[in-house]
């Protein structure tokens, strides 16, 4: 009764201050969104603009005297397509390896009948907090003769301990009766995992797969460490050479020099476009992933 009386009057009293508040709130968020998007918009605009316009600072939101010559140059850069292919390969194959190992490891560590799973879990978890570091890891990979092979990119990060523990937590919630029923029907552990458990875990699998895939697509440092053959370089390394190390400009003919800035912006766009296209569709999986992680904590 009292609540019924109070509510309407309350709504009226709050409404003016609330309106002001909401307007300020909306404006702040709009400004923030603009700040998030503007660098991306500017880079795109600059990549289509004439070189002098970039140098003079005429580009703001739209391309000035638009042309696609910068892109023509970029697409003729011999290593670009090669590196695009490499990145696709590293991302695809890498994520596949990641998922298989993570799922197998997580399932084994979640099953009570596996003797010694506690100590194994502990040994895996320990590596999250202590590791050999850059140089010993490099030397091990060198000893294994993996330098300058695609395996140097795929294997050293094949399992993310965090993701495996996350997956294990998820598997622990699967009812044991389901597993036992499948075993009675004659499934061995592989059968249980691949025929019963995985179909039930597609959403988590997807989430973890996305985390791995984005990490592969964006990674550049393992290539810096382990690769010195240009034909193995991923896209990010090419971008680094073009923009951050000025490579095209340094050993280019005069016509290319005239477009140095445009080429740089075009390369940035080429490198970030795939992620921008995929991102809106996969975004929710990531948010879900953060939530799973936070529940675990």
């Amino acid at each position: 009764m009292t609540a019924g009386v109070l509510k309407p009057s309350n709504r009226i009293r709050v409404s003016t201050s609330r309106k002001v508040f909401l307007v300020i709130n909306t404006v702040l968020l709009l400004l923030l969104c603009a700040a998030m998007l503007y660098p991306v918009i500017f880079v795109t605009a600059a990549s289509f603009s004439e070189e002098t316009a970039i140098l003079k600072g005429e580009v703001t939101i739209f391309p000035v005297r638009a042309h696609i010559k910068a892109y023509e140059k970029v697409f003729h850069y011999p290593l670009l397509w090669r590196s695009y292919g490499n990145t696709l390969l590293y991302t695809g194959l890498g994520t596949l390896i990641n998922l298989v190992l993570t799922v197998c490891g997580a399932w084994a560590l979640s099953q009570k009948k596996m003797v010694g799973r506690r100590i194994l879990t502990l040994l895996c978890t320990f590596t999250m907090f202590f590791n050999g570091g850059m140089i010993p890891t490099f030397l091990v990979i060198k000893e294994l003769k993996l330098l300058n092979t695609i395996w140097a990119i795929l294997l050293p990060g094949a399992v993310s301990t965090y993701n495996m523990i996350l997956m294990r937590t998820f598997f622990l919630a699967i009812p044991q009766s389901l597993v036992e029923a499948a075993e009675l029907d004659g499934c061995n552990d592989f059968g249980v995992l691949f025929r019963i458990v995985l179909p039930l875990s597609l959403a988590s699998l997807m989430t973890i797969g996305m985390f791995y895939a984005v990490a592969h697509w964006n990674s550049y440092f393992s290539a810096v460490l382990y690769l010195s053959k240009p034909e193995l370089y991923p896209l990010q390394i090419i971008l680094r050479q073009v923009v951050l190390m000025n490579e095209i400009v340094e050993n280019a003919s005069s016509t290319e020099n005239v477009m140095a800035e445009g080429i740089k912006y075009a390369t940035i766009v080429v490198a970030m476009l795939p992620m921008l296209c995929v991102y809106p569709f996969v975004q929710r999986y990531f948010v879900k992933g953060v939530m799973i992680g936070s529940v675990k904590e």
Partner: protein
Amino acid sequence: MHKKRNARLKGRVRLWRRIWAAKYLYLMFFPVFLYYAFFRYAPMGGLVIAFKDFNAFLGFDRSPWVGFKFFNQFFNSIYLWRLVRNTLLINLYDLLFNFPASIILALLLNEVQNKRFKKAAQTITYLPYFISSVVIASMVVQFLSPSSGIINHFIAALGGERQYFMTQPDSFRSIYTIMNLWKNIGWNSIIFLAAISGINGELYEACMIDGGGHLRRMWHITLPGIASTIVVLIIMRLGHVMDAGYETILLLQNNANLETSDVIGTYVYRRGLRGGEYSYATAVGMFQSVIGFSMVIMANYLSRRYSETSLW
């Protein structure tokens, strides 16, 4: 006597039977085991070269022992203080500016009534997190370029003098912090947003009935409601003060800004891999790992003590 041995034998048989029953699980785990052995534990074994004068021709085993020589060399160099200072300051800046910023963003997002606008704002603010560090560093360098960068065009338009931002040691921390703000503010707000949505709605109603306005509700209910999340995250962050994002820093680093941009990770890379001083760089890296590990243990202890949440 005989009985005892019999019992022990039976126990052993039972153990092997249990292991045999789980044979497929071990088979399944085997590749993971190999991964950890080769790529996680073998490098830990490789840490011995910090105490040896590693020579590629002699290998791990036959390189001569030198004890703490390389640790002493590092501790007596000017780099120790410089690297630790830079690493700590970069983390401090992040904690002071970027951490509160994402809390504020979560508070703002939480107040949005229009579902569509909220969703759009979230999607847009999470976006930079997915852009690679090479792309972001490239944008930073391009925008700050003294001759053609948009920031300097702006400064010049206002009548200011063009700045060589990337080569000024004084600017580096600010540049890096702002870059990280742009990249992470949205993503880091997710966890706070989740914490806020867990707050009991009745508390807000009670506050409203007591005449509490909007800001008041934020201050007295929302913030205390997520305080435990904030504490846990700060403590967890404490466990990582020794690692700065050296992979990204390396991209922005040049000889002119080394004074403020050099952190342990970039130093190890430069001296170890570029310079070939494997043993010395391993010692420096090990110094970081050991401090980092102690910090994690301490953070976990604090967390368990004050918030009942802990990693183990």
